[in-house]
């Protein structure tokens, strides 16, 4: 299913054009970390019980460890700010002029879209204004394989605006990403707020060719 999506390569080192690229990187990085921390504690447990002194591969000074933790905590945000394009766009969204604006309403577990499907060109900035007057909902765009493109919470009587640049083409489904009570489903468990192919992005081939 993933082959349906063509992404526009940004060409930069460690820049994630789409959430798929980011999640792939995250999966690999966290798996390595998880295996590492489990191995370290296992090594530690083994050597705790041994009479012979263990040979440390590296000696970590206390302040070095503290510096590592601080650098990890802060550096993580600096890294994502520079590597994930939607972070700065999100912070500055009030000052960015979008190419498309879609005003979407939710009432009583029903969507009201301006059009279906909502069609845009790849690489353009799209603003989703989603409003509701009853419950807290979620607004999420998903690929056909179920992976998440982007999302936000929809809080009643507040401005819920999400600016997104689609660097991938294809058809996307809409799911509510927040629980709003069992009335979201019919009695057989079918999600009544799921909208198939609600959004379509085209033009990736042309964009890639221009690059």
């Amino acid at each position, binding site marked *: 299913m993933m082959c349906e999506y063509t992404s526009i390569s940004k060409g930069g080192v460690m820049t994630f054009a789409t959430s798929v690229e980011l999640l792939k990187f*995250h999966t690999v990085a966290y798996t390595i970390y998880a295996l590492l921390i*489990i191995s370290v504690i296992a090594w530690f447990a083994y050597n*705790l019980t041994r009479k012979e002194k263990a040979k440390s591969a590296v000696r970590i000074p206390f302040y070095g460890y503290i510096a590592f933790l601080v650098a990890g905590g802060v550096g*993580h*945000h600096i890294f994502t700010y520079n590597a994930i394009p939607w972070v700065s766009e999100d912070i500055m969204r009030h000052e960015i002029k979008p190419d498309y604006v879609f005003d979407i309403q939710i009432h009583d577990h029903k969507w009201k879209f301006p059009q279906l499907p909502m069609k845009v060109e790849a690489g353009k900035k799209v603003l989703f204004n989603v409003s509701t007057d009853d419950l807290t909902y979620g607004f999420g765009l998903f690929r056909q394989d179920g992976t998440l493109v982007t999302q936000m919470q929809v809080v009643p009587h507040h401005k819920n605006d999400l600016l997104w640049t689609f660097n991938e083409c294809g058809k996307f489904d809409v799911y509510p*990403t927040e629980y709003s009570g*069992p009335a979201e489903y019919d009695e057989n468990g079918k999600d009544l707020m799921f909208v198939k192919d609600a959004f379509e992005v085209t033009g990736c081939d042309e964009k890639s060719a221009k690059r």
Partner: protein
Amino acid sequence: MQKGFIDTLINGTNFDHRELSALQKMVLRAVVMSFLFFGLLAIEGMIMRLVVTPSINPLPEMFNHPEHYFSIMTVHPIVGIFGSTYQLVFAAFMFLVPYLTKKPLYSVKLGNIVWILITLGTALAWIAAFVWQYAPLYTLYWPLPADTKQFQTIGGIVFIVGVALIMIGTLGFIYNIYATIFARVGVHKNKTTKELLISGFGIDGMLNLWHKLTGKPPYSKEPALALPVVAIFRGTVDTFLDAIVILGAGILVLVYLLADAGGLSWNVHAVDSLLYKNFFWWGLDLVADGLVLIYVAGSWYLLATIITGQKLFMENVARAALMLELVVSWMVWSHHLLADQPQPEMMKLVSGEMVTAFELLTQGLALFITLVTLWKARPLKMTPQLAYLLGGLVGFGLAVPAAIIQADMGMNRVLHNTQWISFAHFHIALIVGLYMTLYSALYVLWPMVTNNTTMWSKKLTWTHFWLYLVGGVGMGAFAGMAGLDGMLRRHLYLDGEFNTWMILAAICGTMVLVAWALFLFNVVMSVGVKGLVGIFLPAQDKSASYGIEEN
């Protein structure tokens, strides 16, 4: 002569409930209730796992109904956090504070009221979900809990009364702990309230560090309170604030539901949903980021010193870190609102990202201090106490970075409300990190609380350890991976969308459930059915302390 199976089942190994003091019985009653609720919790978890895994789901069709499914999802954390974890932690601390301060507990009677209220409250909340299918989830996002079009008013009222009872029980625990700490008896006879407060907040540790840096003699050579008591003191501040917030939210919901029952139709939007969400998460986050991390750090320090019989490494730093955690835990709630676009960007940036990142530092410090304390005492025997403690360290070593990764404006856009946060973070934090720490504490305290009762089977103890560790980590990892593939945490999937991950998670979840059953069986065989019943009978020995003579 070795006892037969039936004899052991009835009479236990060498347990005699008549020899237990009032304090010991109170603690054991809460522990029994805690582990019964843990079983209910594990069964609920397995039901939810099976519902979203249709290819292997043997359950009747009624479990697939959204009302039923989300009712279970609503009470699952209530049973887990309050019915099980709170009970176990409160019981342990109501034993440890008198033990460590060498003073009697302020009131054993109040201690008994605490476990009864929490048990009743949890049962009421569960009944509200089971009978009336009240299902606004534990998040209670306004105005869903007051939505009488979707939920029956009576269900909501019973649920909120249940939660209120839990919180009143919690306030009882807090009163008992502080009244014990501040009692000027025994070793604290000549201490002032100011001295106890300074020590309780970890300020003496901070001043000791400052004096060391400036070349002055230590501010306090013998702090008034032992370090684990400082952690309990500090964590209990957050427990109090959390109880007030949850009670406040409960009263709000209750007022609206009672108005509805009285035929009034009040405008739910008179209460701002975003403001409510901030208020609620500020309080609820104190459970996760204040209470759990602080209580856990304190428990690690205590366990490391008891297991090694040595002083804690860098004790002043540990005390100061607990003080730092006070500031951190009160300012991190915005990481729950990174996907809320009306939330001010500055709050997302400062509270949601930057201050939250400090939890990596405070928890990393606790991990480091615990590991070095153990390392300096090598060689150690690998006892269940030590193994469970190391398992707890693995749990938080995995779960805290998983949360820090998600508490980021870039990552949150694709991870918020997915099973990643649910499993890779808080299920691993709770099931592996917190519970393995608690199991370690349980094995450390077992001889003291049961008057040296022999565990029936060491093999079962180790089988429990490995099944629990592998099952807990495995379930968190596989379901967390489903989150990375887009699986939402508060959504009903009946078409097998994430079948492979869910089958793997269900296998690991079964290991956790079986581990619990083995543990419970081992405990029942150790104390015997007679002993189990005897725990709930009045104690002959009315003493409220352990290891000291009461005057």
